[in-house]
């Protein structure tokens, strides 16, 4: 075997490996999207690996009869509220960490890194008692407040790295020309940081959109999408819902995430790099 064939074989092995890995990730997504629209007969026909007849029935029933559409609205409201509250609290903190030197900065940063690890179930279970007392139980604001607690450490860390990337000189120049610190921030730093912040907002949206434990525990009537889906589908063993509704549900749930990936792909790896270091 000469060098050239050896190289060729290596290349083939490499691409086979990459192809297998990509297929492992992508095939389940394609399968669930096809099955979500599969006719009942095709799904239960063992000879049809991929369905040939399609129907919108399952998605429609899920959206309208099983109230997934209301749940989607609730999810969006909760996610938007979460973005607003967590950004209002997180941007000043992120800015302070990025642009100031002060004692105890490392300790504060480290404790925010650690708070990110705080388990959601631990927060949610006792929160029920407080929410009942405050009449926040089963409200979208209540869920959003809890989601903010979940998202805030990420928002602080992401925004601080975004602001650190915006040159301080520009801000100082603006201040030399008579803007206040706040004015310089609003007119110089914030616009420059905007694309990064938009990506961070999408990241927060997906976090809130995907979260199921808090939402299930804190709501009963006003369910977010994952909570609504969980209460319909809980326990495949129980067979609560027919299979094709499960696929329709998975399809609806993964759509916004896909859109997010498409729009924020430029920031994706950096962002997860920051949040998961």
């Amino acid at each position: 075997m000469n060098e050239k064939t050896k190289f060729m074989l290596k290349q083939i092995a490499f691409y086979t490996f990459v192809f297998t890995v990509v297929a492992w990730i992508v095939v389940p997504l394609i399968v669930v999207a096809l099955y979500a629209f599969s006719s009942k007969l095709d799904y239960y026909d063992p000879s049809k690996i991929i369905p040939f007849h399609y129907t919108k029935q399952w998605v429609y029933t899920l959206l309208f009869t099983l109230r997934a559409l209301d749940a989607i609205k609730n999810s969006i409201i909760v996610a938007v509220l979460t973005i607003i509250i967590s950004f209002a609290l997180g941007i000043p903190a992120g800015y302070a960490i990025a642009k100031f030197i002060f004692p105890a900065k490392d300790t504060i940063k480290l404790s925010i890194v650690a708070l990110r690890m705080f388990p959601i179930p631990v927060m949610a279970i006792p929160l029920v008692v407080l929410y009942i007392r405050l009449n926040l139980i089963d409200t979208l604001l209540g869920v959003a407040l809890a989601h903010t607690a979940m998202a805030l450490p990420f928002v602080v860390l992401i925004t601080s790295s975004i602001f650190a990337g915006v040159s301080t000189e520009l801000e100082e120049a603006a201040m030399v020309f008579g803007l206040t610190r706040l004015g310089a921030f609003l007119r110089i730093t914030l616009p420059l940081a905007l694309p990064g912040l938009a990506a961070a907002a999408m990241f927060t949206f997906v976090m809130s959109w995907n979260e199921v434990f808090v939402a299930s525990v804190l709501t009963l009537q006003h369910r977010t999408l994952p909570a609504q889906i969980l209460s319909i589908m809980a326990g495949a063993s129980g067979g609560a819902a027919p299979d094709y509704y499960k696929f329709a549900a998975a399809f609806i749930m993964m759509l916004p995430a896909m859109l997010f990936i498409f729009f924020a792909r430029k920031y994706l790896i950096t962002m997860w790099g920051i949040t998961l270091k």
Partner: protein
Amino acid sequence: MKVKASYLPYLLILPAFAYLMFFVGYPLIQALYLAFTENGAFSLATVNRTISDPRFWDALKYTIGLAAVIVPTQVGLALVLALVMNRAFKGKDLALYALIIPLTISDVAAGLIWYAMLSPSGFLNKLFLNIGLINNPVYFFGYQFRHMEFLAIVLAELWRATAIVFVIILAGLQMISPEYLEAAEVFGADYWTKLRKIVIPLLKPSIQSALIIRTLFAMQVFGIVWILAGRDIPILAGEGFYQLTEIKDYGVASIYALTIAALSIVLGAMYIKFMKAEYLEVKE
């Protein structure tokens, strides 16, 4: 030049910090109260009620068991993936893009997606039936197939969360200066020697960090298990959820929460200790 100011940064951080402190501190105190008091007085009745239930120990066992199977496999898999993908090739961006997709998919959706793959009329069963690899569908779901449910959860979790580990390790790989590897090459080191003597040791912080983060999140696994196995495979978060929503026993639910918290604090302390060490190292 960074600006020095005496109180402004604290003022800016305070709202976020206070908010977080409240949402971490209040639940912990409330959970301790719910778990260790009865009618306003200290009592171990709730604790006894919890630990006398074999499901508590099962939940602990399965939560740790799942983590013990899933996390090391994920780290191994992600390491191989990162090593292979850490070079320029045609279609790299597309491949990376595909690998990252599961990061944005919720645990509930991931559970349902793998149900579509593994159910008796699911994709894999039909595929293997048609190419003649099996004669009857393999059953993954239902109480009598609990071992298979365990396997289904492992498969779904590997699919969903290996990407997180992959991103951490890939970032670590890209930080390794090529000069080290070039120097090794000058001294005649082959690929495996470089891997063993340079890459893996330098990757140790990333691997450690990925291990701890994944273990921490594995302690609170919920959606994927709840969708694929319900209570057939009891887990801490799931049992806590059940006690809270079905039994309305806030005390027992709190003990499940505190158990997760205790496991997380131990792991978190390890994480901070090691983060701090790494941080100081870089600073010097």
